[in-house]
């Protein structure tokens, strides 16, 4: 027995100790109380992941910067060809300097301006594709998972398409259509939603027959509200994660298609185009900055979104909650 206990005991009369204590029924009902909220815990676990938070901060500032960059003073137009004031010729491959922060490319365009313009383009494509993937993927996946009669048919169709490598589908589509911003988006939208739809379908099949959905059916809850209230809230975290992960994926595909010559037209700067332009100069060490700068920005973006997406998916898993 500790000294503290001794003291408490001696403070109360010994006789009194052996009398009945009052029984508080409400107190016994409250013992199980814990202060837990799903989203609160998800955010807390996410914020504990330091690298993910760093990435989040970097990405928010980077996104903000891409959009305000053109309005800052002293910014150059990304497609203007700059001329050498002395010779009047194109200012080709000018190394980074005070005037041209990241130097100029092989026809004298300002690389700094091109990188931010390219980032805007690439992110725009990635976000459009991501939103489409999620919107269409969920709608289709929900149908696939929830309407039992459709399951077999859609599954067969899925298996056929899934059996062909994505690379091939994309290349084929991009080859058939002419290179343009629209083509790029169409090509990626044509394949990306499939994975999302399958994922949603599998999730819905897992959740669909849980007892709480049966309970809702017993109470006569209409299907639309079962989907809204019982199914989608369980998918929100997954959806956020999928968008985050689809962004590096889409950027990667853009680089790939550009690399094999099916990307955006060269006059539209994009990360893929910039990397590809830089690659051509690989043999001359002094010009490598034209590859390194865009690659660095590109990697920063893709790695950050990838880390954030994974950290969020960990955080959204109730097993990691406390």
């Amino acid at each position, binding site marked *: *027995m500790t000294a503290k*206990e001794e003291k*408490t*005991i001696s403070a*109360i009369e*010994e*006789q*009194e*100790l*052996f*009398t*009945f*204590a009052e*029984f508080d*029924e409400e*107190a*016994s*009902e409250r*013992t*199980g109380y814990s202060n837990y909220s799903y989203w609160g815990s998800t955010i807390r676990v996410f914020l504990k992941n330091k690298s993910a938070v760093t990435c989040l901060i970097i990405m928010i500032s980077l996104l903000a910067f891409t959009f305000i960059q053109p309005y800052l003073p002293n910014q150059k137009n990304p497609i203007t060809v700059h001329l050498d004031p002395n010779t009047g010729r194109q200012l080709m491959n000018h190394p980074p300097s005070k005037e041209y922060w990241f130097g100029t490319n092989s026809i004298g365009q300002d690389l700094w301006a091109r990188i931010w313009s390219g980032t805007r383009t690439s992110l725009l494509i990635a976000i459009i594709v991501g939103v489409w993937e999620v919107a269409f993927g969920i709608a289709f996946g929900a149908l696939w998972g929830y309407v039992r009669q459709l399951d077999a048919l859609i599954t067969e169709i899925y298996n056929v398409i899934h059996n062909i490598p994505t690379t091939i589908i994309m290349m084929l589509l991009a080859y058939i259509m002419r290179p343009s911003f629209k083509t790029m988006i169409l090509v990626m939208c044509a394949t990306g939603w499939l994975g999302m739809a399958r994922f949603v379908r599998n999730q819905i099949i897992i959740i669909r027959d849980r007892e709480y959905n049966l309970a809702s059916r017993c109470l006569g809850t209409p299907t639309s509200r079962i989907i809204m209230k019982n199914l989608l809230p369980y998918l929100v975290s997954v959806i956020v994660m999928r968008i985050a992960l689809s962004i590096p994926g889409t950027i990667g595909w853009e680089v790939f298609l550009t690399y094999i010559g099916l990307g955006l037209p060269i006059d539209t700067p994009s990360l893929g185009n910039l990397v590809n332009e830089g690659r051509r100069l690989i043999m001359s060490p002094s010009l490598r900055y034209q590859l390194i700068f865009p690659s660095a920005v590109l990697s920063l973006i893709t790695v950050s979104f990838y880390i954030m997406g994974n950290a969020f998916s960990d955080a959204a898993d109730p097993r990691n909650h*406390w």
Partner: protein
Amino acid sequence: MSEPILSARDVVVKFSLRGQILTAIRGASLDLYEGKTLAIVGESGSGKSVFTKTFLGMLDANGWVDSGSIMFEGMDLAKLKTEREWLKIRGKKIAMIFQDPMTALNPLRTVGMQIQEVLELHQGLKGEEAKARTIEILGQVGISDPAMRYHQYPHEFSGGMRQRVVIAIAVACNPRILICDEPTTALDVTIQAQILELIRGLQKKLGLTIIYITHDLGVVANVADDVAVMYAGDIIEYGTAEEIFYNAQHPYTWALLSSLPQLGIKGQPLYSIRGTPPNLFNEIKGDAFAPRNPRALKIDFVKRPPYFQVSPTHYARTWLLDPRAPKVEPPATIKAMRAKYARDAI
């Protein structure tokens, strides 16, 4: 009374969970006698599983024995640290079987191999000899056509049959002590009866000492020689099966027995325990059951009761046994059982 084969004293087990310390076992003590079956009863979270896992060094990686001793064959198991030391105990001397037979077997290996593996490991049998012995053991645990079953995979067995295989694995170890962790909870009643019979038969035949963990008092009555009642990480009452069922002393044991529908009277409300068990992350003061006990004394909230001896084999941790305590009437069910006990005793 003979010497216990295993004797645990004031065992404290802690877990670290996300930066917080949880005290799962709060100084529990236990004696296990050779050839007997000891049943540990308790609700989920009472620590019955965790407690017995310390006998095998099988706590999860975030848990440890903080203090206390577990004496077995002159060794203190609480002091064992390395896997090498535990390998001399696990399986060889003390074996364990688990609750869910559906997941306890490796789905990708034949049933025969999973038993034979043990024979090769512990008894040094090889090849044909090991196979013959495996088939013999399969027959011993009541599996018909063992030679054919030897080559089958777990998914080709029903739940009851799988539990027999798990038991066969434990028996193949040839242990002194067998710990059964709720082995019939996932099974149907009729299958449960058969498994209980099998375990009893094997005990007689092989001279096993058994620790049987369960929350079902009906099963306890069936298998146990001795009973330990656990609540919130502590053994609050210990005695022979008769003593616990017919002469329980701790209010929690009373409550458990009285709330059983089997002992209730139709049309009348059952005795019911209010509230929920305490949160083991918090420090527990006094008697852990006090907040849910309508008959609690003030001292129950201040000071932890010691064990009071009721008979040489029966003791309980409750202040009600203190001579200074007021006389407390147990619930009607308990009185009825005591009366029956008294009648039978004459």
